[in-house]
């Protein structure tokens, strides 16, 4: 049952992991990654944040945006990357690059601080990037049920809302599987009935 690509070309894919500060993005990445999560940094002049061309801006004030990421070798020729979004949502220039070509996004939610994920949901909806909501259960506690969270976030009924324990490899795996299944279902539906 091995899936060999026709051309035998190596390729990669990525999934974006979003959510508020301290919600467990790096923990989730680390629980399935085959490497210890790495951090990559992008620098931007602060005057140029949100502006595509910063050549006219003198390099005085600069901002560093850090993203943690992990890697899963799906098979010899296909590597999946999991990228955590920068903690501060004002760094939209980096989000553009993160979502470009992504399979979809996992929006992690801490039900004690639900509002922390609003900006991410708005962004993905605006970019039409498929996402699911993963309620991270700290210490095994889930403070609200999935329906409450769905209502509070006012998201469409087809967006999956799942619970997870970001520290647990199986649990994280299941979140990623749910996301890819959801994206595949959406694709098949649209392939049959194009908008």
């Amino acid at each position: 049952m091995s899936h060999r690509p026709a051309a035998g070309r190596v390729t990669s894919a990525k999934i974006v992991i979003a959510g508020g500060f301290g919600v467990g993005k790096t923990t989730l990445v680390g629980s399935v990654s085959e490497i210890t999560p790495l951090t990559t940094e992008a620098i931007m002049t602060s005057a140029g944040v949100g502006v595509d061309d910063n050549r006219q801006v003198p390099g005085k004030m600069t901002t560093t945006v850090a993203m943690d990421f992990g890697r899963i070798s799906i098979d010899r020729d296909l590597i999946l990357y999991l990228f955590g979004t920068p903690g501060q949502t004002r760094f939209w220039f980096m989000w553009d690059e993160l979502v470009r070509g992504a399979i979809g996004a996992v929006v992690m939610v801490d039900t004690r601080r639900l509002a922390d994920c609003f900006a991410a949901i708005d962004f993905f909806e605006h970019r039409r990037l498929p996402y699911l909501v993963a309620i991270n259960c700290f210490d095994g506690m889930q403070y609200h049920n999935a329906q409450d969270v769905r209502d509070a976030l006012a998201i469409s009924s087809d967006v999956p809302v799942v619970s997870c324990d970001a520290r647990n490899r199986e649990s994280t795996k299941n979140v990623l599987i749910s996301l890819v299944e959801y994206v595949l279902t959406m694709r098949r539906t649209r392939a049959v009935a194009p908008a």
Partner: protein
Amino acid sequence: MPERDEPTGALVRPYAVTRGRTRPKLEIALEALVETTVRGRSGIRGGQGGSEHQYIAAMCDGGRVQSLAEIAARMQLPLGVARVIVADMATDGLVAVYEPTSLDDETDAVGTELLERVLSGLRRL
């Protein structure tokens, strides 16, 4: 060497290794994979190119493909700097860059096949 302890926040310092160039010769995605070519390998043995080139060529050699993001992280270079260097190396034929498969066209069978491979791979983990 007190300057080594200075913060690397200034734009000019990170881009010193690219001689001030901030525009890459090629656009390379964050997750694009980089692999050293035969030419790149002989370049390392011959000691050609700057130390960054040699480091990247060694890192992505022997079937160990690495993404642009990994190269930047492991070299502790800002992403933009790593992108300029890798684009230079690709232009010189020292590395091959494999761009990710596009998922933009939702009716495209190649994208759907890729997602199916990701799904079965995740289930096998």
